[in-house]
């Protein structure tokens, strides 16, 4: 069976000069939570926006394959894509404070999604809104219908965004750092909510995050992005157990994991920053920050298989050992 969302060799260019995404490939299966993880500027959000065809002006996407439930997204017209958005693919964003229109009530903003895609009366749409707000844990949902965004807290607004995204029973929810702007307790609530929704509604979630703690908690599978490429793909447990790409290893060494940190050794860090990649760049983008780099890293890098459903983009053989610091 083919994946719900199948992306192969996605490239996104801005103004024809800088490549934000360079040949990213990953699949999201029906009903799974798939995490796209990486540091700022690695192309996670751009990838998400290009799936939705919501790239800012000047952004161009191309791919070998970009299909959703068997539909080729690249061949859809703007109008056809709009029919899919909010309907079969929904998206929520990092900025709950500004993502709702300040001039309209919560009820009207939620209802218009349903009336737009499924028709029906406004009253029916408002009823659905109340039902979904209850479902995502918003207290007194009837009262919220007439409220404006500025009367709600950040956590509540993000719940409204989630409820709004669910109005049409989508198959896929793209969540771009949905908890980054929220405080830790609210963050935990939202993550629990997403996990519940996935379980109860069979919703597939493409979750974009830079937080490995979130990945460990909610992801079924992970794609690690670096400088516009997916450098490693694996089931979550497998990735945390035996990371293969030096970048993934670096990322994992930056977070304290119980049982892995040693008292006398400091937490790791990856020196340097993500380099700007110009056109015509070849080889491994991580080589400037990698302790294993040699001349062969400037050539085309093969994708290596580490185990079933676990592959990575590096010249090194699986299970290579880290040089032990003296």
């Amino acid at each position, binding site marked *: 069976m083919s994946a719900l969302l199948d992306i192969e060799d996605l490239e996104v260019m801005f103004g024809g000069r800088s490549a934000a995404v360079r040949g990213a490939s990953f699949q999201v299966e029906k009903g799974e939570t798939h995490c796209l993880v990486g540091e700022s500027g690695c192309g996670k959000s751009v990838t998400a926006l290009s799936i*939705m065809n*919501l790239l800012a002006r000047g952004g161009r996407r191309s791919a070998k394959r970009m299909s959703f439930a068997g539909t080729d997204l690249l061949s859809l017209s*703007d109008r056809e894509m*709009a*029919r*899919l*958005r*909010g*309907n079969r693919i*929904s*998206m929520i*964003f990092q*900025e709950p404070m*500004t*993502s*709702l*229109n*300040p*001039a*309209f*009530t919560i009820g009207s903003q939620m209802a*218009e*999604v349903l009336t*737009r*895609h499924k028709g029906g009366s406004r009253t029916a749409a408002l009823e659905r809104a109340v039902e979904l707000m209850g479902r995502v844990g918003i207290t007194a949902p009837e009262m919220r219908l007439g409220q*404006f965004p*500025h009367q709600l807290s950040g956590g509540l607004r993000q719940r409204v*965004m989630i409820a*709004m995204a669910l109005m049409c029973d989508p198959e896929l929810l793209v969540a771009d750092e949905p908890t980054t702007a929220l405080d830790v307790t609210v963050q935990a609530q939202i993550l629990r909510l997403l996990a519940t929704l996935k379980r109860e509604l069979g919703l597939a979630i493409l979750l974009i995050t830079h937080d490995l703690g979130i990945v460990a908690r909610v992801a079924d599978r992970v794609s690690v992005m670096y400088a516009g490429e997916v450098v490693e793909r694996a089931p979550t447990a497998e990735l945390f157990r035996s990371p293969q790409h030096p970048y993934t290893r670096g990322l994992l060494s930056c977070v304290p994991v119980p049982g892995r940190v040693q008292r006398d050794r400091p937490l790791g860090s990856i020196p340097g920053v993500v380099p700007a990649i110009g056109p015509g760049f070849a080889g491994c983008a991580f080589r400037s920050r990698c302790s294993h780099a040699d001349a062969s890293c400037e050539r085309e890098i093969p994708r290596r298989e580490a185990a079933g459903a676990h592959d990575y983009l590096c010249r090194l053989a699986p299970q290579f050992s880290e040089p032990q610091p003296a």
Partner: protein
Amino acid sequence: MLLLIARRLGLGLLVALTVMTLAFMLTRLSGDLAISIAGPSATQADVEIIRKAYGLDRPLYVQFFSWVGRAMVGDFGQSYFFKDSVSNLIAKRLPITLTLGLVGLSLALIISIPLGILAAVRENTWLDRGVTMFTMVGQAIPSFWLALILMIVLGLNLGILPISGTGTWQHFVMPGIVLAFTAIPALTRLTRSGMIEAMASDYIRTARAKGLSRARIIFKHALRNAAIPVVSIAAVQLGFMLGGSIVIETVFALHGVGYLGWESIAKNDFPVVQAVVLVLAAIYIGLTLLSDILNALLDPRLRTG
């Protein structure tokens, strides 16, 4: 909401009172009114009689309070020149000025809002640049010059519109266009920048992610937010238009309030001058109040504040 209106209303009354005081003081500062009313050939005795007849011999504060007291009930006294009560004069002239102002503002909004939206959604194209150029040229053209050009082209050469007077609705077309031009550049640029800002906002990204149609995104979600500053400025612009219509009323010989004010200043008809200033100020205050209320209706965040 009611509290907001009450507060703005109180503020408006204070402004009106200030304007009354200023209008009263400034007309007194222009010299001895009895002498100027009496004219150059009058004797000292004539001046004294006039001073008594018009009540100008009373102390200033008595004159002021008696004027304010009577103005409150709509009695602005007699005109010295027109042999008619001031309230009658204004009642006759005001509809002309209001018609002109409303025609001007309507034309301005009908032209500048679509133009601003068009320029915003086609940002950085030749169309956008054309609109920007048009607003710059519009800003630079003096209204009397435009009035004369229109009179020559539309009135004399083509003969499709009357040049002066107030007989029919056609008489208001040319002055309306000229008046509209004083507001179009500012309103167009404001609409354009408001729309550009709105279209780049997170909530428009959300609206697109919801799969809404382009028309709904532009005309509902973006325009509603971009309209907020446009409404405030439009109300103030209408105030400017009514005040600024003095030039246009003179050029097109429209006998409106502006023209009346100009005539009475020239004739030292100070009860009329005072009343004209007060009426224009009252309209201005009313417009500001109206724009505050409209803004509160458009922007829910202002309603509680």
